[in-house]
C-alpha cells in the first residue's frame, strides 16, 4: 500500500463532552479495499468516533480526511416513519442527486427486502427498517462506508447477505469501517481495532 491509496485518514482525534473525555488522540487510516472493524464495549465512544468520521460532530481536536463519496449508516435507523419505502428512497435520491435508482432494486433484493414500495416505514419491523437504513447508506455506491452496528436486528440469513455485499464493496476497492460491540467473525477484517476508554489500539488482522 502507498500513501496515495489512503482513502480515510483519522489523525489525533479527541472529543470531550464537558469534563467527560470520550475520545483520546485516536489515529488510524484505511486504504482502498480495506475492511476495518472497530470493537468496544457499550459507552466506549464508538458511535461518537463514527459520527466525527462521518462529519456530524466536530472533534475537540484532530482531523478526519475522506477521499471520495461517503456512505454513513447510523446505529438507529434514521428513516422517515411517516413515509413509504419508495418516498424514503426518493428523499435520499434527491440528496445524492442520483439520476436513476439503478442498483437500488438490486441492493434491496440482495438484502431480501420484501416489503412493497408503498409500505409505510413506521409499520415495518426493526430488522426491515435496518435494511432500509443500510440501503440508504449504500445506494449511491460510496467509496468510503461507515457502518455503525449495521446488522443489528438482522436474522442469520440477512447477516450473511450483508457480508456478501460488504465483500463486494471491498473487492471494488471501497473502504469499509464497521463498528460493533461484538464481532462473531473477526477473520472478515483486514484490520481490527479496539476502542477502550476513548483509546484506540490495534488488535491485529486476519
Amino acid at each position, binding site marked *: 500500500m502507498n500513501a496515495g491509496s489512503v482513502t480515510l485518514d483519522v489523525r489525533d482525534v479527541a472529543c470531550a463532552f464537558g469534563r467527560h473525555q470520550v475520545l483520546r488522540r485516536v489515529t488510524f487510516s484505511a486504504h482502498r479495499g480495506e475492511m476495518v472493524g472497530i470493537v468496544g464495549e457499550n459507552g466506549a465512544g464508538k458511535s461518537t468516533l463514527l459520527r*466525527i468520521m*462521518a*462529519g*456530524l*460532530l*466536530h472533534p475537540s481536536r484532530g482531523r*478526519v480526511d*475522506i477521499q471520495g*463519496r*461517503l456512505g*454513513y449508516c*447510523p446505529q*438507529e435507523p*434514521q*428513516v*422517515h*416513519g*411517516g*413515509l413509504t419505502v419508495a*418516498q424514503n428512497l*426518493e*428523499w*435520499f435520491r*434527491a*440528496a*445524492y*442527486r442520483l439520476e436513476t435508482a439503478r442498483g437500488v432494486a438490486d441492493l434491496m433484493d440482495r438484502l431480501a427486502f420484501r416489503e412493497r414500495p408503498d409500505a*409505510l416505514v413506521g409499520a415495518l419491523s426493526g430488522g426491515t427498517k435496518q435494511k432500509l437504513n443500510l440501503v*440508504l447508506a449504500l445506494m*449511491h455506491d460510496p467509496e468510503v462506508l461507515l457502518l455503525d452496528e449495521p446488522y443489528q436486528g438482522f436474522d442469520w440469513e440477512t447477516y450473511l447477505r450483508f457480508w456478501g455485499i460488504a465483500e463486494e464493496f471491498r473487492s471494488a476497492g471501497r473502504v469499509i469501517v464497521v463498528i460493533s460491540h461484538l464481532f462473531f467473525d473477526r477473520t472478515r477484517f483486514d484490520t481490527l481495532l479496539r476502542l477502550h476508554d476513548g483509546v484506540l489500539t490495534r488488535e491485529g488482522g486476519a
Partner: protein
Amino acid sequence: MTSQLATAFRLSLVELRNNRFAILLLALYLPAWYGIIYSLTDQASIGFKLRAFDVFVATSQHRLGLLTGMLNATTLIMGFVALSAVRRAALVDQRLVLCGFSRGALIFGRFAAFALASALVALYAVLVLWAFTPPQHPGVVLAGTFGAVLTYAAIGILVGVVTRGDLEGFFIIIMLSLVDTFLQNPIGNPAANRKVVEYFPSYLPMQIVAGGALGDYVAWWQFWGSLAWAAAVGVLGLVGFWRRTQIARRH
C-alpha cells in the same frame, strides 16, 4: 437546488397528510367540538370588543362560542401537526443534509408545506363552521383563521426545535393555545376585553374573524399583523431548524 426544493416541499406535504391522528382530529374532533359548543351555549346576547374600530359588537353566545372554538381547535391541531412533524424528522433531516441535501431547500420546502397545510386546515375549518353559522364575510374569516393557524404552525416548529421531549412540547402547545384563546373569549372570561390580550398570538386573528363573521368590520392591517406574528415566530423556528440540521463537515 430547485429539484431538491420541489422534492422537499412535496414529500413534506405527504408527511403531514400521513399524520393520521391529525386527520382524524380534523375529521371528527372539529365538527364534534363545534357541536358541543353549539349545544352548551344559547342565543343569549354577549358583547365582543373590536379594538380596531373601538366598538362593542353584540352577538349570540352560539356564534361567538363557535368562532373562539374554531380558533382554539385549529391552532391546537396545527401546533400539534407541526411539532410532531419537526420532531419525527429531526434525525433524518440531519442525515439528509449530510448526504448532500441543500439545507436551504430542505428548510424552505418544509416551511412551504406547513404554510399550504395551514391554508387547507383554515379552509376546512371555515367550511365546517359554515354548516353551523354562516359568516357574514367568509373570505375575511378564512384570512383570520389562516393567520391563527399559520402562527401556531410556526409555534409548533419553534417548540419542536427547542424542547427535548415530545411530551413537554405537546404540553406547551396545549397550554399556550388554551390560555391564548380562552382568555379572549368573553363567554368564559368576563375580563376578555382587557388590553393584555392584545399581545396574545391569536389576538389579531380573533379580531379579524369576529369582525368579518359578525358584522362589516374589516381591517386588513390586522391580517398583515397576524402574518407578521407568524413570520416572527417562524424566523425563530428557522434559526432553530438551521442549527439542528448543522453538520460539522460536508463530503
